Structure formats: structure tokens, C-alpha cells
């Protein structure tokens, strides 16, 4: 008992010490060399006006490759665990199971089914304009995923866009295109994950990477959401 008491007192002291951190951190200065380098060189070396896009698609594209791999592994794990789940709730995707719940109204179909295409358009805009305005592949991809979830919840018939099999094939294809685009630099001599075309217009490579990453992230998160709503089997 005495050891447990001593351990509890030590834990409380450590938490209190951790709470002193905001007062200590305020005296250190943040270095500015990185920001100055990106301010001077980001546009001519990568072609993107958005410096954040220039970092994660140009200078540190290896991190982006690893992150899409983590998404792929998470998707595979989620689909493997949720493969045989039967869903009886009112949020189920097949229309014959939906209408029998007594608290279900038509509000969901009317609002989300009509908003879905607008959000799809907005997601495509954020994805394609990622190099000159805030946005990019990941942000546009997540908006695309939410648009696909809206369409799945709101429409009464099953379309190809909300079919989990079609979406997962699209996701695998875009991951393959991402790997091929990343290794095309090896064939043209500039190096892995570098721009394979002429050095005067590197912006086309950034736009291609944005589109492919957006498609991959969007379809992957949409497949996970549709699987959790019970729509992964049956059609």
C-alpha cells in the first residue's frame, strides 16, 4: 500500500511539473532560416505558390508517400475487421431496412441528397487549386469523402459512386498511379519523387500528385465510412 501511495504522489508531481510548461516555453525564440529559404526559393524550385504544398509534395514528398501507405494499411485493417457485421439501425444504407424505423423522417434524404453534388464540386475545386490557394490533395480528398457519404445517406437507389467495391478499386488504382508517378523521376534522371519533366514548369507534377492523392484519400475514407454504415455487402 505504501508503494502505491508513493507512486501516486510522484505521478501527481510529474503532472504538476508538466503543467508548468507554458510558462517555460515562452522564452525560447523560434528559428527563421527555414521560412526565409522557402520565401525565396519555393516558387522557382517547385512551381507552387502555396509553400505548404511545396513542402509536402516537393521537398518532403517521402513523408506523403509513407502517409498514403498508412492510410492503405488502416483501410485494409478496418475492412478486414468489419467484413461480417450485420447492421440493423436506421442509418443502414439499404432502403428497405431504412424505412421501417419509426423515428426516421425524410429530412435526411432531402437535405443530404441535394447537398452531395455541391460538396463534390467544392472538393474537386479544393483538390485542383491546391498549389495556389489553401488546400491540396489531403484536404480535397477528405471533402470528397464527406460528399460521397452524403450521397450514400441521401439517395434511395444505389449508384456506382457509393458502391464500396468500385471505390476500393479506384483507391488501389490511384495508389498505383501515385507510385508510378513517384518513380518516374528515376527513369528521366532527376531522382526518386522528383519532377520528371522539364525544369521550367514543375507545377504540372505538383498538380498531378495533388489529383492522385486527393482521389486516393477521398475514396479510402469513403470506403471506411460506408463499411461502418453496413453498406459493404449486399451489392
Amino acid at each position, binding site marked *: 500500500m505504501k508503494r502505491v501511495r508513493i507512486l501516486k504522489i510522484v505521478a501527481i508531481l510529474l503532472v504538476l511539473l508538466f503543467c508548468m510548461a507554458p510558462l517555460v516555453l515562452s522564452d525560447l525564440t523560434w528559428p527563421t532560416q527555414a521560412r526565409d529559404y522557402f*520565401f525565396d526559393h519555393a*516558387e522557382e524550385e517547385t512551381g507552387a505558390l*502555396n509553400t505548404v504544398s511545396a513542402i509536402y509534395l516537393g521537398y518532403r514528398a517521402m513523408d506523403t508517400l509513407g502517409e498514403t501507405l*498508412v*492510410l492503405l*494499411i*488502416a483501410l485494409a485493417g478496418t475492412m478486414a*475487421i*468489419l467484413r461480417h*457485421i450485420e447492421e440493423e439501425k436506421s442509418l443502414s444504407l439499404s432502403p428497405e431496412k431504412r424505412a421501417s424505423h419509426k423515428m426516421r423522417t425524410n429530412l435526411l434524404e432531402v437535405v443530404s441528397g441535394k447537398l452531395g453534388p455541391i460538396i463534390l464540386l467544392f472538393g474537386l475545386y479544393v483538390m485542383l487549386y491546391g498549389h495556389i490557394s489553401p488546400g491540396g490533395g489531403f484536404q480535397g480528398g477528405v471533402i470528397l469523402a464527406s460528399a460521397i457519404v452524403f450521397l450514400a445517406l441521401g439517395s434511395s437507389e444505389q449508384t456506382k459512386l457509393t458502391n464500396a467495391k468500385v471505390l476500393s478499386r479506384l483507391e488501389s488504382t490511384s495508389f498505383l498511379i501515385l507510385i508510378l508517378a513517384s518513380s518516374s523521376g528515376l527513369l528521366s534522371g532527376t531522382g526518386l519523387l522528383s519532377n520528371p519533366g522539364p525544369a521550367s514548369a514543375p507545377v504540372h507534377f505538383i498538380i498531378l500528385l495533388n489529383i492522385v492523392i486527393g482521389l486516393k484519400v477521398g475514396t479510402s475514407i469513403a470506403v471506411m465510412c460506408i463499411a461502418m454504415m453496413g453498406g459493404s455487402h449486399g451489392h
Partner: protein
Amino acid sequence: MVIERTLILGLFLVGSFAVVVHKNLFKKIFGLNLLNSAVVLLFILEGSRIGNQAPILGTSITHIVDPIPQALMLTAIVIGVCTTALSLALTVKLYKTTHSLHIDTIKERIANES
């Protein structure tokens, strides 16, 4: 600057309280998401100290904030989403097996089964 850091610390403590103390599995997953958000906000706050304009180059932009923490946090947010998705899938599977979301009940039902 101290006020913002103290608020982010409060968010972090709420998240860790939810993970450690609550016995419902969904509340623990909420706590994990709060922890993730607190760390992301702290990095972006620290990076914003050296400038006052968004890091998008243009004609009249002179003093941008540091873009590196923002690029790092994009990755962190996506990985937080992946972690949440996998933990929610595992929670659904645990519920289908033991019909409970309380971790003590789950523990004794699994011990009784095996």
C-alpha cells in the same frame, strides 16, 4: 502567448483525463481525438510566432508564418483519422462479441469465455 498555451494544455489534460479515467470505450476514443487536436494546435501556434500572413506567396506578401509545422500537422491529422477508424472498428467487434462497452465488464466476460 501564455494564455493560448495554457488553453491548449487544458485541452490536452481533458483528453488524457478521458483516456485514463472513463470506462466507456467510446469516451476513450473521444479522448484520443482530443489529445491529437491539442498537439496539432500547439505545433501550429508555435510556428505562427514569426510572421503574420498565411504562407501563400503573392504580390504583397512579405511576412509569412513558418510553413513547416503546418506541413507536418497535415500528416499528423491523417494518421489521427486512421487511428480513430481502426479503434472504432475494434470497438464494434468487441461489442458484437461481449455485448458491453464498459471495460471491466468486457474483461470479465472475456475471462469467463476462455
